[in-house]
Structures are given as structure tokens and as C-alpha cells.
């Protein structure tokens, strides 16, 4: 072996070692670069695990199991005075109970947060106020809903994550009161303040489409429903997909395009039927029948 050849092999080995070291360094940096949450005690870890299990139950439609898991998570969080997690659990329980029709129970959950702002903090109070406003929509008490919307807005520090939600809420109240221009204004604000592909943007677009349909702006309404439909389909929100289709169908029916309306109604009916929402499917059938009678 000549010295020149030996020198070349050493250089190659050094390059390999350097590359290996660089690779290890990159891996170490990647491992360290991942975000690590704050350390949690066993009770908090238990509460978080229960809350995640509750969220999965709620996502698959098991409200009873979700409520039970959230209760246990609430107890675990309160046992170590983790107010942030306890407040989140109270809000979750308010959502579950409100969806089940127990509005008084839901209000009681939220009132615990609203009554102790020094304990739960302004962000949670803002979310609790927004939840109260949403519960008052079901009451239905539109004045109280608007009142708590304003309180939520006041408690939510900028940049407020609830801006789009609160704007949509106002748009919904305006629609309920028959004030389509105001509803369109608030819905437009909701579209502007929401995430680009978030559910709240789809909600704002749907509200915008409804307001525009009432104002006779059928093309704009059709476009809004189409955008909302695209977002909801992407998010996999079956019920809202059906609502977008129904909105589009109503818009087509309003401008006299019966065939297009029937097409949208049929698609909505298919979605409801596939999702097992028999009651809503029956409602769509009635609309289809009414459309046939108008011909």
C-alpha cells in the first residue's frame, strides 16, 4: 500500500465520521426541539387522560360516557386545585349538558366560572360568558344572549380567539330578528376573523349565505354555501355538510331553480340518512314534497 493511497483512505474515514456525527447531532437537535409540556403531577395526568377520553367519547357521539369522564376529570383537577383544567372541564360539561337539553344544569356549570373570575382567570371567564350566550340561544332568550356576548367580548383580551365565534353569534341573533343586513355584516366580520379552514369560518359563511339569500343576493349566497360546504366536508362535519346543502337548496329554490334545489335537497337527504339523523331527513323530505307541489 502506497502512502498516497493510505492518506486518501484516512480522509474518507474522517468524512464518514463527520457525516455520522452530523447526523447524530441533527437527530439530537430534532429530539430536543420538539415541544415538551409542563411537568404534571399524577392527578393532573389522570385528569388530562380522562379529559382526552371524554373528548373521544363526545366525538363519537356518546354523550353519557363523555359526561361521566368529564366529571371524573373535573374531580381529579379540583383535587389538586388545577383551576385551568377544572374550568375547561366545567365548560365541557356545560356543552354536553346543554346539548342534552339540560340548560339549567349547563348554566350552573358555567356560573361557577363566571362567579369566581379571580380563581379561573379572564380567558376562562370569556369562554364561560360565550358559552352562556350560546346556551341562551337555546333558551331562547336573544337579549340575554346578546348581553353575554358583549360580556364575553369585554373579558376576552386581544387578540381574542373568540372574535369569530362572537361575531357569528351576533349574526345569528340578527338573523333570528329578521335583520338580514346586520346579520350579513356580522357574518362578514366572522369570516374575516376566523381561521382560514376552521369550522367557525364555515359557520360564518353559512350565516352569510343565509343573510344574502334573504337579501336576494342569490349568487353571493350560492358562493358562500359552496365555500362553507368545502370546509365542512374537509373537516368531516356531516351535519354541517347537510346544513350547507340545505342552505344552497333553499337559495336555489328562492331564485326559482327548482331542479338545482331538488338536487341539493336530495344530497342533504342522503347525508342525513347516511348519518342516521332520521328526524332531519324527514324534514328534508317535507321540503322536497313542498318543492314538488310548487311545480
Amino acid at each position, binding site marked *: 500500500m502506497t502512502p498516497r493511497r493510505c492518506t486518501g483512505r484516512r480522509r474518507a474515514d474522517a468524512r464518514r465520521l463527520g457525516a455520522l456525527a452530523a447526523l447524530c447531532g441533527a437527530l439530537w437537535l*430534532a*429530539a430536543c426541539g*420538539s415541544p*415538551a409540556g409542563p411537568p404534571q403531577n399524577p392527578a393532573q*395526568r389522570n*385528569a*388530562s*387522560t380522562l*379529559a*382526552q377520553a371524554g*373528548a*373521544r367519547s*363526545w*366525538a363519537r357521539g356518546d354523550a353519557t360516557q363523555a359526561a361521566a369522564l368529564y366529571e371524573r*376529570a373535573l374531580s381529579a383537577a379540583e383535587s389538586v386545585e388545577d383551576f385551568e*383544567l377544572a374550568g*375547561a*372541564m366545567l*365548560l*365541557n360539561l356545560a*356543552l354536553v349538558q*346543554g*346539548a342534552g*337539553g339540560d340548560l339549567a344544569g349547563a348554566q350552573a356549570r358555567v356560573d361557577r366560572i363566571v362567579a369566581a373570575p379571580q380563581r379561573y382567570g379572564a380567558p376562562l371567564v370569556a*369562554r364561560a360568558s*360565550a*358559552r352562556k350566550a*350560546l*346556551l341562551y*340561544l*337555546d333558551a*331562547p332568550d336573544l337579549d340575554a344572549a346578546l348581553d353575554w356576548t358583549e360580556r364575553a367580548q369585554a373579558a376576552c383580551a386581544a387578540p381574542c380567539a*373568540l372574535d*369569530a*365565534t*362572537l361575531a*357569528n*353569534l351576533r349574526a*345569528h341573533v340578527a*338573523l333570528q330578528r329578521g335583520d338580514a343586513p346586520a346579520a350579513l355584516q356580522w357574518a362578514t366580520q*366572522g369570516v374575516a376573523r376566523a381561521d382560514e379552514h376552521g*369550522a*367557525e369560518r364555515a*359557520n360564518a359563511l*353559512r350565516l352569510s349565505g*343565509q343573510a344574502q339569500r334573504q337579501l336576494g343576493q342569490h349568487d353571493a349566497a350560492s358562493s358562500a354555501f359552496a365555500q362553507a360546504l368545502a370546509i365542512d366536508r374537509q373537516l368531516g362535519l356531516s*351535519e*354541517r355538510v347537510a*346544513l350547507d346543502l*340545505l*342552505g344552497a337548496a*333553499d337559495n336555489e329554490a328562492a331564485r326559482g331553480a327548482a331542479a338545482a334545489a331538488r338536487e341539493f335537497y336530495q344530497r342533504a337527504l342522503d347525508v342525513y340518512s347516511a348519518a342516521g339523523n332520521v328526524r*332531519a331527513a324527514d*324534514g*328534508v323530505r317535507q*321540503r322536497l314534497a313542498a318543492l314538488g307541489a310548487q311545480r
Partner: protein
Amino acid sequence: MSAVPPVVEPPRAKSQRRQIAALLILALLLAITLAGGIAYQHGVLTTRSQVYFLADDATGLSPGTPVRMSGFRIGKIAAMHLQPDLSVKVVLAIETEPFSHLKTDARAEVVREQLRPAAIDLRPGSAEQSLSEDDPHVGFRKRGTLTEIAEDLRTRLAPILDDVKQLTGTARARKGDIDAMLEHAHAVTRELAGATQEMHALTLDLRNRVARLGTQGESVLGEANRSVVRLGNLIGQADKSLDAVNTRLPGMLGKADNALTSLDAVLRDARTISSSAAKGVPELMRSTAPLIDDSRETMQGLRESWPLRSMLPAPPPAALPIDSHDPAALHGSAPR
């Protein structure tokens, strides 16, 4: 001596003497008749019997006081004698015929009416034996005058009137209670009437049920009779079956004995296994919880460790988002 010539009375003198004699005879006859009448009036001509009674005092009585029976005068008080014990023996002289009606419980009552003289009313009595002629003692009762009766009434009525007055006052004071009692009594009466009607209905119902039970009982008895006949047949069949069992039972018992021996061995094995499990399973169960905790910790660690952390989907957030679509009012069909 010379003879005195008879005096010749004039005819007028003779007539006057005859008239005087006739008047004297007539007067004598009248006197005798008057005396007889008076004697008759005084009972001289009638036969009399005597009875007596003893009185505490003889106030108002005197010899000659009339004695009556059934309103007719039959005699009078003949004599009155004070006795050593200061009682008065009053002897009554009465006609014989009324005496025969007197019984041993006959009694004399002094009757004093306000404006009439006292009299003795003789009551004959109702005993079977007649009054003895040797000792004609009758009872005596002194009937009071109106004043005495009034005094007696006053004495008797005064306490009663006091009680009535007191009761009236009490009743007036407790009028409310009495009203309530009357009301309650009225309500109870109404309830009793209702209860009576219910009892009546219940009785009718019971009568109907008993009638039905009677009918059913007859049918049941008939059925029972038929069942007894069937049972007799079954007993005959059972008798035959028992004969068959008697012939086959010894062999079956031998087989069962073998089976029980085998079963006993199996149970011994099962007991051994159970005792082993009883020791091991609780330990296993106790070690399960820590094992699950360890597994959860391991899974949590793996989930949070690189590079799995980047491969696994992010866990759902603890807090559900506040969505403006949450109200149930928005879940139905879209507003038109």
C-alpha cells in the same frame, strides 16, 4: 043504801075521746116510724162487722167519719183508741156484705179533699185469702192533701230544677262544643249512612261472589273427581313403572356409585385447583393495577418520546372548542 044512777055521757064527749085516742095512736105510730127511720139511718137495723187499722196519728179523723168502698158508703169510724206506743187504733164498723170482699192485703186510706170532710176509702185488696174475722186488721195509708202533695213535689222538683238550671248553663257555656258534637254526630251519621250503603254493596258483591264460588266449586269438584279417576289410572301406571324400576335400579345404583366415585375424584382435583387459584388470583389481581399504571406510564412515555411523538396523532385537547354552531337550535334544518 041507795044505788047511784049511772052517769050518762053526752055523745059529743064520746066522739072527742075517740078523736083524741086516734090522734095519740097516730102520734105514737109516727114516733115509732121516726125512731125506726133514725135507727135505720144509724145502722141499728143492719148487721155490722168491725175492722181496724193502726195509724201514727189520727189528725182529721173522728168517730163517725164515713167509710167508703168503691165510692159507696159502707160504714163509719166506730171508735178510736190511743195505744201504749202512741199509735191510734181506729175501729171501723162496716156492713157485713162488703166485709166479705176484704182480703188479707186490704187497706184503708184517709182521703182529705180541700173542701170536703175527711173520709176513709177502704181498698179490698187482691190477695187470695179473705180477711180474718178474728183479727180484722187492715193496712193504712194516709193520702196527702194537695198542700202536702205540693210540698212533696216542691221538695222533689227543687233539686231537679237546680240540676236543670245548672245543665242549661253548662250547655249554654259549651254551646260551641255541643254544636261541634252535633256537627260531628251529623257527619258520623252521614258516614254511617255511606258505610251502610257500602256494606250493602259489599254484601251484594259477596253474595254474588259466593254464588259464583259455589258454581266454580261445583265445577272444581267435578274436575277434581275426574282428576282422582285419572290419578287412579296414573297410580296404576306408576305401580307398573315401579316394578320396572325395582328390576333395573340395582344395576343403575351400581353405575351411579362408580360415577360418584369419579365425580369425587374430579371435585378433589377442582378443589386443589381452586385453592391454588385462591392463592394466586388475588395476587394476580393486585398486581394488575400497578401493571396497568406501568403500562400507561410506558405508553405515555413512548407517546411523548421522539420520534413516536411526531408519528402519533396529537391527543385531543382537554377543552372542547367554543363553537357558534353548538346551540341545539342550529342543529335542525337551516332556517329558510
